[in-house]
């Protein structure tokens, strides 16, 4: 399929009349790992909710894989994977049962095989037959990623994926994201306020401040543009990425 992976034009959203997202114009090419930065309440999750069709934008358009998130919802859903910020899944079901269920919903031809392959790919086959209710945050996160990729989507949305993880878990997640991008060619859209993550994983970053996109460029260009800054935190502060 040609064209960008994600395209937003004049995208905006209001909750009960209060605007939280203003006229976002943003294009993310295929194969990118895009880091969407912003403080709490900046509008990152709202953007992901729109792109994953969970909410309908109040104005503007958004295309994922060339399909409109409002008028072509089913086609969008067939091509995306989504990991929400707090992964719970069904505690009374085993990891395998959870994954099989989500694979079936995504129309995977051989759900059992897809689940086994995904668990093996993520190196967590040992969790397959344990009930998710007994899992630690890190284990739940790994199964959460498995559910997001079991149907091999072309675009993967991760909402604050490192929240609640210990340093080892964060390192493992980082490696997984890079592998998914390299091995399976997935475009990754990652919401985060963990700036340290962005420089290690992302190819492009965007900064959202109070619902407005104030910056977007490649990681490489960003580093070149702010050569004097000591860290990404400093760059972020200079761009105004802090609460008013």
């Amino acid at each position, binding site marked *: 399929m040609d064209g960008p992976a994600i395209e937003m034009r004049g995208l905006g959203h209001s909750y009960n009349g209060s605007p939280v997202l203003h006229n976002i114009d943003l294009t993310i090419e295929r194969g990118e790992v895009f880091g969407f930065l912003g403080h*709490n309440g900046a509008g990152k999750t709202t953007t992901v909710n729109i792109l994953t069709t*969970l909410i309908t934008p109040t104005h503007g358009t958004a295309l994922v894989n060339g399909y409109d998130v409002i008028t072509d919802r089913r086609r969008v859903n067939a091509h995306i994977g*989504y990991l929400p910020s707090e992964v719970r899944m069904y505690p009374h079901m085993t990891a395998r049962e959870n994954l099989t*269920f*989500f694979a079936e*919903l995504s129309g995977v031809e051989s759900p059992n095989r897809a689940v086994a392959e995904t668990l093996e790919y993520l190196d967590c086959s040992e969790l397959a037959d344990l009930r998710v209710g007994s899992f630690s945050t890190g284990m739940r996160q790994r199964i959460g990623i498995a559910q997001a990729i079991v149907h091999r989507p072309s675009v993967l949305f991760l909402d604050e994926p490192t929240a609640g993880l210990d340093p080892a878990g964060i390192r493992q997640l980082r490696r997984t994201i890079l592998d998914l991008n390299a091995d399976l060619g997935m475009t990754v859209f990652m919401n985060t306020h963990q700036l340290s993550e962005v420089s290690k994983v992302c190819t492009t970053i965007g900064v959202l401040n109070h619902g407005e996109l104030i910056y977007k460029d490649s990681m490489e260009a960003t580093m070149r543009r702010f050569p004097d800054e000591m860290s990404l935190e400093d760059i972020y502060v200079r761009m105004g990425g802090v609460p008013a």
Partner: protein
Amino acid sequence: MRTESRRRILAIAHHEMRAATRSGVLHALLGILIVATAGSVVIASAVYASRLADYQAYRAAAVAGGVTRIAPSPLAPLSLLRGAFEYIEIIGSVIAITLGYLAVSRERANKTLPLLLSRPVSAVELAAGSFIGALGVIATLAAASATVAVLSVGLIGHDWLNLTQVGKLFLAFIAAIVYMATFYSLGAYTAASSKAAANGLMVALGIWLIVVLLLPQIGDTLDADNQIPGGLFAALGLGHDGEVQILQHFATYETVRTSIEAASFAKHFERFAFAMTDVKERYRSLSFPDLLLQVRASIIWILIYAVTLPALMIRAFRKQPSIPQGANQ
């Protein structure tokens, strides 16, 4: 596309059945229903066995004595299931409401609704899948109940049902499935329509209380003959004709009373199930088509509720926000 949609609906149905079979609270409620139902049939069958033995002794004595006109058996084996249907009416409906509530609250509590709806699944498919899954659970429950009933009547009551009786019993259990599925839809509808699903559960239980217990009880209390222990008309020394003549002066009153009863979905189920299981003597002599004709109003009401509530459930599922309100921006 149709095949894909069917696959998704079946996946959700299977998911619903699995969740139900692993829910502790449902196990507890099912336990109460099964013990109570089995108890009612076993107790009734034991009483029946002794009455049947009495009748057979009379019959044998009559035959031995050369009597040619032997009175037919006054016993109706299907009526032994009256208690079973009353338990379905009261406890079965609570179980169904619980199932419906759990279908909604499970997705909310586990925060899996966004995961489901980020897949190519529509709210209608979600509602249809959940409903079919629940129907599977309810049908299994009804089948188990019917098996216990038929075996108890045969093994303990010493009277095996004939084909017509099995047919009528089958229809009564179909009505039981429809009845419980309607309450399932009520539980799912109220939970999906409420911000806090637990409040929806309480609303559904409030409706249950009114529809299943209070309205039929009020209708019964208002019955003119029930005003005095032993019957008002009997106390006045009036026979059936006198009762009919006097009740002609109470046409409006009787209309109000029957309307109160008719407002209860449970009462219609009860009337239909009792007609199919020979509980009321006046139905026993009727042919099957005549029997259906007698209870046509109940059949229509059952169907109206059975269509309306699932429709409301689908509407509530469509309107239900896919992410919790007030969540992160």
